[in-house]
């Protein structure tokens, strides 16, 4: 865009272009797909956390009218290889799509019934008889490390998947030179992502052309295709993966699942389209979980509150099998655990442990919420120990504005940042001194008000390809193609795969402004490997910073070509031209212009070819980021605890976020709101609970507490804007910030309210009973 032309769309609250179809019931999610002759597949799942399978009798099920096939692990043994983990790990277990010989967690698939519809397939499951011998179960990762713990994968001799250590800076010296060392244990409990649309897949096999089409509710259709190709031994050009409308992902739809493999395999085996739709109980038991990290922290500090280093030991619960990125997530937590603070030295040890549970994997934030929780709880602990103000302790230790780009102890380089203004703004919004005074007054009358503060920084826009594991298919780059059609309307193909984030709108905003056209003249297409060039997908808040940057590259190539054509038509050098209001015009005098359509006609018609210029208007961009972006901000809340019941009530919730340049404030707010809700859910409500027999006690939404509207506060948002120097758009990413900032903020607030009782730490979720018990104990003491 030429200087002087005001962007029409970028920066404005443009209504979403994906909405008209979604608010009228015209979205097509995977369960909405119907193909002639389509069959329904339903999985039979293990009721045991750990058991030997003696035998499975499927004869009665097979005889039920309407049943087409029943398969067990034996039927795929040797035909389908192990499922894949892309992240490096030392001990990687064999992971069959249907259990063979043993089941290792409740919900593991042991058989699949295929029938004319789901009712009949479900009837078939009731007729399958499995003879199990229950085995000892281990669900506590710390106990799983003990010498006499039952071993989940016998070939490894113990339950350790991976042990890894990272050390940087002079941590030992920091420990020696500290006035005191603050030690504590933190638990990031296990969560279930619960996208409102469960998973699902539809597969269609054409035996004539040996071509597989798979619709799946996935966040990364290209990655899925690459991994499926490997497991199914099919070439990638004979496979088309389509992510139709996807009803939320939050990380859990990045994994390549046993059911996706099985659905494809069954379609090929039976020569019939097959649909598998996950039920919510399956979703809670067998869709990858999140978090589940126990941390032992040691923070060497000076008496004035200066932090000298950070040391942590991680016990990472891996569940029974490693999923696509399971072993990678805790690493992010370690790399980012020093937060927005000057911490010259750090060290962390990761112990990844098998248990009889579902595997965790990426879940909104994937490692950064854990990291931020460590950093922020550490700050609160220091403040508490040294009797300092929690806001001031943060201010004191912030990486100063002048230090950016700042390399932190783990080696990561923070692109840009200015942490104090965000903190100040958040404090101003809650009227910090006043609310502290109210708190003091309230305490005199048995009112327990707490003020929570969390200053976060996170890593987005993954990222330089070397940051991803070597065995990961696809890189950290992203792709885009832009095509100006013969009528001068624009089609954009993006390699990211949005599922609620709104890039059909934000990308159209970018393109419309760059090309001086209307937003309705742009259509953004995504999620189909047969249409869109390879892309890595949507996760880690990378859609706009990486995908948008790729799009800008493609746009610039298109602009260059069109200017070149216009240049010969207008007899003006290309570098003096700009796009304006449906024309290509002289930047110095916008009235000297020709309509875009004439340039398009010239290009497509090619009747008077310009030497060196090919016909057509189709350009692609592949953008490899040179570094990651690091959004930041401060969240602050005011809560009140009912000391009789332990119930937490929100009085205020303020979020000040800095996600760099903002393309569409409406979308950014939406992302922040949703993120905060999920973060509060971790702080107060949600927790996946297995009992010691490996039974999942939170197996339905009757027991797993996804927050309702009444359980969440009214969010007050503000922002600071510190553009990222990394990408041409200056954007940082905002998909996970809310989740990362809110969890520690709320915990900080509740614990602040409980300070008069001498309560220093409580594990999440801060349910009423936990708070009530702590108060009871304190009152007794």
């Amino acid at each position, binding site marked *: 865009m030429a200087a002087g032309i005001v962007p029409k769309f970028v920066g404005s609250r443009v209504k979403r272009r994906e909405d008209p179809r979604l608010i009228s019931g015209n979205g097509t999610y995977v369960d909405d797909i119907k193909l002639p002759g389509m069959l329904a597949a339903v999985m039979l799942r293990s009721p045991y956390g750990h058991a030997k399978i003696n035998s499975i009798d499927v004869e009665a099920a097979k005889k039920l009218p309407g049943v087409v096939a029943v398969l067990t692990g034996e039927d795929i043994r040797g035909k389908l290889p192990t499922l894949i983990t892309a992240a490096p790990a030392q001990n990687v277990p064999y992971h069959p799509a249907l259990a063979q010989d043993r089941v290792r967690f409740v919900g593991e698939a042991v058989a699949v019934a295929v029938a004319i519809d*789901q009712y009949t397939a*479900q009837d078939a499951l009731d007729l399958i008889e499995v003879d199990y011998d229950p085995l000892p179960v281990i669900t506590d990762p710390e106990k799983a490390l003990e010498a006499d713990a039952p071993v989940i994968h016998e070939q490894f001799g113990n339950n350790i998947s991976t042990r890894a250590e990272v050390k940087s800076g002079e941590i030992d010296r920091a420990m020696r030179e500290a006035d005191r060392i603050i030690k504590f244990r933190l638990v990031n409990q296990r969560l279930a992502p619960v996208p409102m649309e469960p998973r699902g897949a539809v597969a269609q096999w054409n035996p004539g052309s040996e071509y597989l089409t798979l619709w799946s509710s996935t966040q990364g259709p290209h990655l899925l295709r690459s991994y499926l190709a490997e497991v199914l031994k099919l070439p990638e050009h004979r496979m088309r993966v389509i992510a139709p409308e996807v009803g939320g992902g939050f990380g859990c739809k990045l994994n390549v699942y046993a059911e996706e493999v099985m659905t494809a395999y069954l379609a090929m085996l039976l020569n019939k389209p097959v649909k598998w739709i996950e039920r919510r109980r399956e979703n809670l038991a067998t869709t990858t979980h999140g978090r589940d990290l126990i941390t032992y922290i040691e923070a060497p500090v000076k008496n004035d509150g200066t932090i000298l280093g950070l040391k942590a030991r991680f016990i990472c619960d891996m569940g029974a099998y490693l999923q696509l990125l399971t072993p990678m997530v805790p690493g992010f937590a370690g790399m980012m655990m020093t937060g927005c603070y000057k911490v010259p030295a750090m060290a962390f040890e990761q112990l990844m442990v098998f248990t009889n549970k579902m595997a965790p994997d990426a879940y909104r934030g994937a490692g950064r919420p854990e990291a931020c929780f460590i950093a922020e709880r550490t700050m609160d602990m220091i403040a508490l120990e040294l009797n300092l103000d929690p806001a001031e302790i943060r201010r004191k230790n912030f990486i100063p504005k002048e230090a950016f780009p700042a390399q932190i102890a783990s080696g990561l380089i923070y692109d840009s940042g200015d942490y104090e203004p965000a903190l100040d703004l958040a404090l101003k919004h809650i009227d910090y001194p006043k609310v502290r005074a109210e708190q003091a007054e309230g305490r005199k009358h048995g009112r327990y008000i707490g003020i929570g503060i969390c200053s976060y920084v996170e890593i987005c826009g993954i990222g330089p390809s070397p940051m991803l594991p070597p065995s990961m298919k696809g890189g950290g780059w992203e792709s885009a193609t832009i095509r100006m059609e013969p009528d001068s309307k624009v089609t954009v193909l993006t390699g990211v795969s949005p599922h609620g984030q709104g890039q059909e709108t934000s990308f159209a905003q970018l393109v419309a402004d760059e090309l001086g056209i209307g937003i309705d003249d742009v259509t953004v297409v995504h999620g189909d490997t047969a249409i869109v060039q390879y892309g890595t997908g949507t996760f880690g808040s990378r859609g706009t910073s990486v995908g948008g940057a790729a799009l800008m590259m493609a746009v610039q190539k298109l602009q260059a070509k069109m200017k070149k054509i216009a240049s010969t038509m207008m007899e003006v050098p290309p570098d003096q031209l700009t796009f304006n209001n449906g024309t290509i015009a002289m930047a110095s005098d916008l009235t000297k212009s020709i309509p875009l359509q004439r340039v398009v006609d010239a290009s497509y018609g090619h009747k008077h070819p310009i030497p060196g210029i090919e016909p057509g208007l189709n350009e692609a961009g592949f953008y490899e980021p040179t570094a990651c972006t690091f959004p930041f901000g401060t969240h602050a809340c005011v809560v009140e605890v009912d000391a*009789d019941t332990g119930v937490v009530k929100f009085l205020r919730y303020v979020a000040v976020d800095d996600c760099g340049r903002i393309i569409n404030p409406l979308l950014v707010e939406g992302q922040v709101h949703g993120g905060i809700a999920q973060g509060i859910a971790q702080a107060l409500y949600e927790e996946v609970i297995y009992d010691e027999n490996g039974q999942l006690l*939170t197996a339905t939404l009757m027991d*797993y*507490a*996804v927050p309702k509207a009444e359980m969440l506060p009214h969010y007050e948002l503000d922002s600071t804007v510190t553009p990222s120097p990394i990408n041409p758009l200056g954007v940082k990413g905002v998909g996970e910030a809310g989740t990362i900032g809110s969890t520690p903020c709320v915990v900080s607030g509740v614990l602040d309210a409980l300070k008069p009782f001498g309560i220093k730490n409580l594990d999440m979720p801060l349910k009423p*009973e936990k708070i*009530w018990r702590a108060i009871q104990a304190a009152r007794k003491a």
Partner: protein
Amino acid sequence: MFPASFQYHRAASVKDALGMLQQFGDDAKLLSGGHSLLPMMKLRLAQPTHLVDIAGVAELSGVREEGGKIVIGGATIHDNVASNQIVRNKLGLLAEVASAIGDIQVRNRGTIGGSLAHSDPAADYPAGVLALEGEIKLESSSGSRVVKAQDFFVDLLTTAIKPGEILTGVSFTPHPARTGFAYLKHRQPASGFAIVGIAAMVTLDAKGNCERVRVGVTGLGAKAFRPAAVESALAGKKPDTGAIGTAAAHAADGIDPLSDIHASADFRSELARVYTRRAIQQAIARIKT
């Protein structure tokens, strides 16, 4: 999500329904709002072979006044109880309890008869019906009988209803003068059912002492109950903070409390005491004198 097979029968009248119950015996279940039964059938935790749908039976639905009593038909949906003008004006506690059940959609389908018959230990209605000393009418092909709320709830998911009987209605005495009420509920965060629910109704005499205190507790034990010690502790007393606190401290007396991942027995008991205190206070504060 996919119930096992059964045969569906639509009853045209109570008589019709009773006939079908007799015909199919133990294989049959009544279907009213379906909001307890169908969820179990979807998970195949219940697999009846015959369903007798009474939701459309006109004589079972609605609120009427009859000889100074208010009678609510067994198949009256929660929303109609919550919004009915007679109930709101004369039986406010029941309206308040009904409006605390589940959510709008649940209240648009679920019925009072189904709720009482199902007798979920975490259901709301039982607390209200106990506090209001409702009378439950049961009909069978051999006749009808009336069971007092006190005697109706027998044990976990068990009531005084005998096989072949239909709960056709519940009748209540309207609130007397100088009466206040409150229903307080500590919701289980996921399901929305009551971890503890306290229905309290207080009538004061002309001097401002407690003439009658009625409390119904749900969620705490296997079945809903009236904490006799709470009620009697306040009888005839001036309801000051101290007296209410002392009385409410007995809310969990003699009960074997439920315990689950959402609340342990200890915590449930404490919630019962705290909410009993608060419900009585609120009831008194609402008395119009």
